[in-house]
């Protein structure tokens, strides 16, 4: 019924109505907007140098001077958490965009050219048989630790999931009458793929991209936490938590604050994804 009522409205109005129906999506967008601002203005907000070591103020609890306390080297945890937002958001966005782009290219090849399908899907199945954290860790053994290599190590396990989705969608779309009609009048294959198939992938891919971003942010934190991700002195939420690992009983705040930020971010991204899914595909609203 709601789709009937909104059928004649502009897209902007539809989004407005969905937002009202989904307060959690509002929350997600608001949190992410604040985080993006925090990341952009990190140098101003942090107040202190996140790398500055102060042996006199080691593992101090939160206070007016150090909002989130200090870590084992006397570095300000608040400043490190604020700078860490940059790493997490860059990783989330970069991985989501790159794995969707790669996944669409490979998935369209597999879905449209049945000769390639067999080969591509066997490789993808193989990659998917390795748990993604283990695969990323193993890739980090080969790559040198750093932001860009961490992003690559996270993209590789994510791509097969996009490929699978795109391939399934392409397989169902390519037999739609309008695609067959385009084929019959002699439209070139690349044009069919770009003009007739790609636009139909947009909605499900948006949803997939947000969930990939959430999983990428967690994976980066996991890699850094385990000591195989971003170099330890660089403030990233995973690194800060790794620093606090041995001081759980005396300085819980070192782990607590970056952990809360991480949880909030992932929650916000997931809520955005849930909202997008319900908005773009009402049929799925009650599933999962």
């Amino acid at each position, binding site marked *: 019924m709601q789709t009937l009522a909104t059928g004649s409205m502009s897209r902007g109005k539809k989004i407005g109505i969905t937002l009202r129906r989904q307060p959690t999506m509002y929350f997600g967008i608001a949190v992410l907007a604040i985080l993006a601002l925090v990341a952009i203005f990190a140098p101003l907000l942090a107040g202190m140098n996140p790398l500055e070591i102060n042996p006199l103020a080691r593992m101090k609890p939160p206070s007016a001077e150090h909002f989130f306390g200090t870590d084992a080297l006397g570095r300000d945890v608040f400043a490190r958490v604020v700078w860490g937002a940059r790493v997490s958001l860059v990783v989330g966005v970069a991985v989501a965009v790159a794995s969707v782009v790669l996944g669409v290219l490979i998935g369209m090849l597999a879905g449209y050219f049945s000769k390639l399908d067999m080969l591509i899907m066997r490789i993808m199945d193989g990659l998917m048989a390795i748990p993604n954290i*283990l695969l990323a860790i193993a890739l980090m*053994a*080969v790559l040198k630790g750093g932001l860009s290599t961490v992003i690559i190590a996270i993209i590789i396990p994510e791509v097969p999931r996009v490929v699978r989705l795109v391939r399934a969608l392409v397989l169902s779309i390519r037999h739609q009458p309008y695609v067959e009609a385009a084929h019959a009048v002699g439209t070139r294959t690349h044009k069919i793929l770009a003009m007739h198939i790609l636009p139909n992938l947009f909605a499900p891919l948006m949803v997939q991209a947000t969930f990939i971003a959430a999983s990428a942010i967690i994976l980066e934190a996991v890699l850094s936490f385990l000591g195989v991700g971003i170099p330890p002195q660089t403030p990233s939420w995973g690194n800060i938590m790794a620093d606090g690992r041995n001081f759980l009983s005396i300085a819980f705040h070192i782990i607590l604050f970056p952990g809360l930020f991480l949880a909030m971010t992932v929650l916000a991204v997931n809520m955005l994804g849930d909202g997008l899914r319900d908005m773009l595909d009402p049929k799925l609203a009650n599933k999962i």
Partner: protein
Amino acid sequence: MVVVAVFVFLLAHMSPGDPAAVLAGDNATVEDVEKIRASMGLDKPLIEQFLIWGGNVLQGDLGMSTSTNVPVLKLIHQRMGPTLSIALFTILLAVLLAVPLGIVAAWKAGSLTDRLIMLGSVLAFSIPVFLIGYGLAYVFSVKMSLLPVQGYKPMSAGIGLYFKHLLLPCVSLGLVYMALLTRMTRATMLEALGEDYIRTARAKGLDSRLVIWHALKNAANPIVTTVGVGIAMLIGGVVVTETVFAIPGLGRLTVDAVLRHDYPVIQGVLLIASAIYVLINLLVDLSYRIFDPRMDR
């Protein structure tokens, strides 16, 4: 599995640095390095190396760890116990709690109980394992001193001690898994409860417990599939949990191997982890027949 094997094999060969040169040390001459290279079989063509390696793997020989000089299989065998214990009890815990929660949420769909359960599952899905783990450790171990903070005790050290050390890791790892299972159970149960035969059963005045049982039998397949798919997530999560609780399992072994560039160990763990994953999903496929006898036809 063959694709995994090729990938795992190539992984070590993409790595920077020359293992022969590393083993030979700084003072080695070019000849020494060549000699070691020949003894390791690294001078042969890539395909031949792969076939030799693959043959050894099939015979159960995963090679030697380059950093400790212990056979990889032995290392993995030593570390298997804690990891399997955590994984097994986590699955058990998650299934026993999540399936009933999902059923309740579906039965009372739209109610406050349902909303609370769904909210809880979104939260559990987003909170990273280490935050849950450290949070639990801080409250139950540091503040209340009820449970050990870290470490692992084998079953031979006493059943009580064994479970005490496993409880927190399993709970913290299980929450994410529970969230996934609860949502899946709710979704499939909702669908099953909307079917005609359920309406008939209710119209006949059947006891609601029996109605749920009818629906659950029909919702079982997707739930079991999710259990299988979740195994990959679980194996990944074990790595983190082991680090949080300082448990000497496979995850710790892998991370240490990465830090030491010990490729044979990494290859071995990857192969075994994916073999377990494939095997479990095979079992899941076979279990469909139990829940859905129509498949036999």
